[in-house]
């Protein structure tokens, strides 16, 4: 049964030597190379993204852990604690106002004293800075020659800033008047004004500038007013003089409010309580490190330069910055590892915010997830795999569980919210909202399908021969399962559980929806047995979320990343343990 052989349809190929590559083949290979390059580029791009991501986290998070702190000697001044001069009793201490007594009293004075002991003359430092800046401004407009004496007087304190401001201000106004006149085109008025300026500047010793203006005034005519106006504006005299005037008006006395602004009088209430418990400390001094205020941190990190008003940390002026620089130079301000970050409560104030409750909350919730999901997940799997009758219902259940694993986590949050609604109607909702127990329950529900799936595949991987052998010697199904199959499947189950817990650790959305502290209010939790599970809590991801929305950049871009680092380290450890477990116990049947 053969087909008629047709004459060859393809033209007889001429002999093509294998040693010569045809062009066509080269083209084809080029396409192959292109595909390879595409693949490599894709991978490179993605890995680059990963590197940038990790870099942005670590490059900001790690430095943020070294907090700028000022080392000062706190003097518990009895004069402040009891203004009437009587004995200082715990009740007295308890009644001292936090703001005026502690923040602006004890802390501010202690800072002042510490600076003095370090040889820093605060007033001089402030004056110097203002003078320097003013000199800069004036020098830029050729006013340096006259500025010197005024500023020296200012520095020495013989002349008030306000007076100098007036001097400069008058000159500035004169220049402005001249400018206006020139702009208006009125030659006579302009000449008059210019002459006034020249005289004024000369008197005050601004000889260079005076000469400049004189030159402009010379030969002024109706045609040249525009040029003259431009020339006058170009000298920058008006701006320089008026700005210097404003600047000179600024420095107020560096008083206790100013001192208090520099540092964060950390835990004023705690200090008060501490003193109440240790009244014998009154009259003593002790060296402590207090965090500097977050605004100051923004200056010290270079985020704000303080070059002009828009670049100034809120509530600060040049004087504060000058004192700060002095403190840095005297080594009073230094960077120390911020251990407290790991134990402090979350606070809107970046100086004292911490992830203590968050760490605990996450830990408690992981415990709840471990207990619930592991026990229920494994139990459910065992039942479905081994004991349940094989009918449509069990099939349906299995399909559902697989689908649940793919449901977005936020839906579990909604489930939690709905449970809360229902419980609120019953009256007990408010007591469980935002607690570790509720968070743990929601996360358990989310992790349950993952663990069920992992357990089922671990159980399935155990060869049936083991089970059959056990049954063969008379064990019951329960005994075969618990004594034989389960121990062999245990490593797989554990690995799956750990991975599930690691996923739950990183979840944010569901916990936000069940009211996990989106504001302050979470304290360090009590032990789980005495009700710690029923207290308001936070978790690492939710606290990261909070930190990332803080108004201060050092928190948003610094501490938030530090918290992320903590979270990533925990995740890494968990995954590492899971992989080690898998490697160590993996059996190949």
């Amino acid at each position, binding site marked *: *049964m*053969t*087909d*008629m*052989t*047709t004459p*060859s*349809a*393809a033209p007889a*190929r001429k*002999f*093509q*030597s*294998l*040693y*010569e*590559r*045809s062009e*066509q*083949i080269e083209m*084809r*290979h080029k396409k192959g190379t292109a595909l390879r390059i595409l693949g490599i580029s894709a991978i490179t791009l993605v890995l680059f993204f990963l590197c940038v991501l990790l870099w942005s986290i670590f490059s900001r998070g790690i430095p943020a852990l070294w907090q700028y702190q000022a080392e000062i000697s706190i003097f518990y001044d009895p004069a402040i604690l009891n203004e009437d001069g009587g004995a200082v009793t715990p009740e007295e201490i308890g009644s001292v106002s936090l703001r005026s007594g502690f923040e602006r009293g004890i802390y501010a004075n202690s800072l002042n004293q510490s600076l003095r002991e370090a040889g820093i003359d605060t007033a001089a430092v402030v004056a110097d800075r203002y003078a320097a800046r003013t000199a800069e401004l004036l020098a830029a407009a050729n006013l340096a020659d006259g500025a010197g004496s005024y500023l020296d007087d200012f520095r020495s304190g013989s002349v008030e800033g306000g007076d100098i401001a007036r001097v400069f201000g008058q000159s500035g106004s004169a220049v402005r008047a001249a400018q206006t006149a020139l702009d208006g085109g009125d030659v006579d008025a302009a000449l008059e004004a210019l002459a006034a300026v020249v005289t004024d500047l000369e008197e005050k010793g601004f000889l260079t500038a005076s000469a400049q203006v004189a030159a402009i005034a010379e030969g002024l005519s109706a045609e040249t007013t525009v040029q003259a106006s431009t020339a006058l504006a170009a000298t920058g005299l008006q701006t320089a003089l008026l700005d210097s005037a404003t600047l000179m008006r600024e420095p107020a006395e560096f008083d206790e409010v100013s001192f208090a602004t520099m540092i964060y009088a950390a835990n004023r209430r705690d200090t008060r309580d501490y003193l109440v418990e240790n009244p014998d400390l009154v009259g003593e001094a002790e060296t402590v490190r207090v965090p500097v205020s977050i605004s100051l941190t923004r200056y010290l990190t270079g985020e704000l330069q303080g070059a002009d008003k828009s670049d100034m940390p809120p509530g600060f002026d040049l004087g504060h910055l000058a004192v700060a620089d002095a403190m840095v130079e005297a080594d009073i301000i230094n960077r120390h590892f911020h251990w407290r970050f790991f134990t402090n409560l979350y606070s809107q104030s970046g100086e004292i915010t911490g992830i203590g409750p968050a760490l605990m909350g996450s830990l408690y919730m992981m415990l709840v997830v471990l207990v619930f999901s592991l026990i229920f997940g494994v139990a459910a799997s065992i039942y479905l795999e081994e004991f349940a009758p094989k009918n449509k219902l069990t099939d349906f259940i299995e399909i559902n569980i697989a689908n649940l694993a793919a449901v977005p986590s936020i839906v579990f949050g909604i489930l939690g919210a709905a449970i809360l609604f229902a419980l609120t109607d019953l009256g007990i909702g408010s007591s469980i909202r935002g607690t570790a127990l509720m968070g743990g329950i929601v996360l358990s529900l989310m992790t349950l399908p993952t663990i069920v799936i992992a357990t089922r595949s671990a159980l399935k991987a155990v060869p049936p021969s083991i089970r059959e052998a056990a049954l063969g010697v008379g064990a019951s199904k329960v005994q075969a399962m618990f004594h034989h199959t389960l121990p062999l499947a245990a490593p797989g189950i554990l690995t799956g559980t750990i991975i599930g817990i690691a996923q739950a650790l990183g979840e944010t959305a569901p916990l936000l929806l069940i009211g996990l502290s989106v504001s302050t209010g979470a304290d360090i939790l009590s032990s789980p047995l005495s009700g710690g599970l029923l207290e308001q809590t936070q978790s690492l991801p939710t606290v990261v979320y909070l930190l990332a929305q803080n108004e201060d950049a050092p928190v948003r871009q610094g501490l938030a990343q530090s918290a992320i680092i903590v979270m990533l380290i925990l995740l890494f450890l968990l995954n590492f343990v899971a992989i080690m477990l898998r490697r160590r116990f993996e059996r190949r049947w």
Partner: protein
Amino acid sequence: MSTTDIKIEARDVDVFYADTHAIKSVNVDVQDKTVTAFIGPSGCGKSTFLRCLNRMNDTIDICRVEGSIKLDAEDIYDRRVDPVQLRAKVGMVFQKPNPFPKSIYDNVAYGPRIHGLARTKSDLDEIVETSLKRAALWDEVKDRLDGPGTGLSGGQQQRLCIARAVATSPEVLLMDEPCSALDPIATAQVEELIDELRSRFSVVIVTHSMQQAARVSQKTAFFHLGELVEFGETTQIFTNPVDSRTESYITGRIG
């Protein structure tokens, strides 16, 4: 080209899988327009050697080939040689039919398309038709060329693979136990094909069935434990083997 021309000449060929010496010093000639059968017990290396002839062993990292294999007097392992080009000249049919999940037409047209053998659609149509006819499949599928290649019966699929392999007009056709997955009727069809194919190509067929070798081949090579034990005219090998091992195999005492 007369039938006495040597198409493939193998000299002192050794194949190593990492440290295992799988093929030892094989010398064999494949003549043009001849069917050469490789026989031997399972695991003796005949498939491995076959795969050397079109450098399919390149795909296995740990495999190392030494010695010389020449196609038309050109060493195929020369570093100038592109395996892609080689395989256009030396086609292969595998043990288990492996049609692509494409239409029958596209299966057969695959080779010609990538090698650019047809300039127009009608050229391609002709190549497909010729190949399917050569594989004795044309009548059965000519009305459903757009149907899936995987929708055919086992025997038809293997013939489709043969059609696919001949579509590139190779000079040599390697067949690795092509009938072992087929039923007797399909086997008979394929064997008939082989006889016709040898009018155009050199065919090398690996088979574990001595009867098949006796039926279809003119030359036979007997492999045992990685060595080429005996090589000669088929009739001579089966009636008058020189080596005692060959005789043992033929009479069924080994393998």
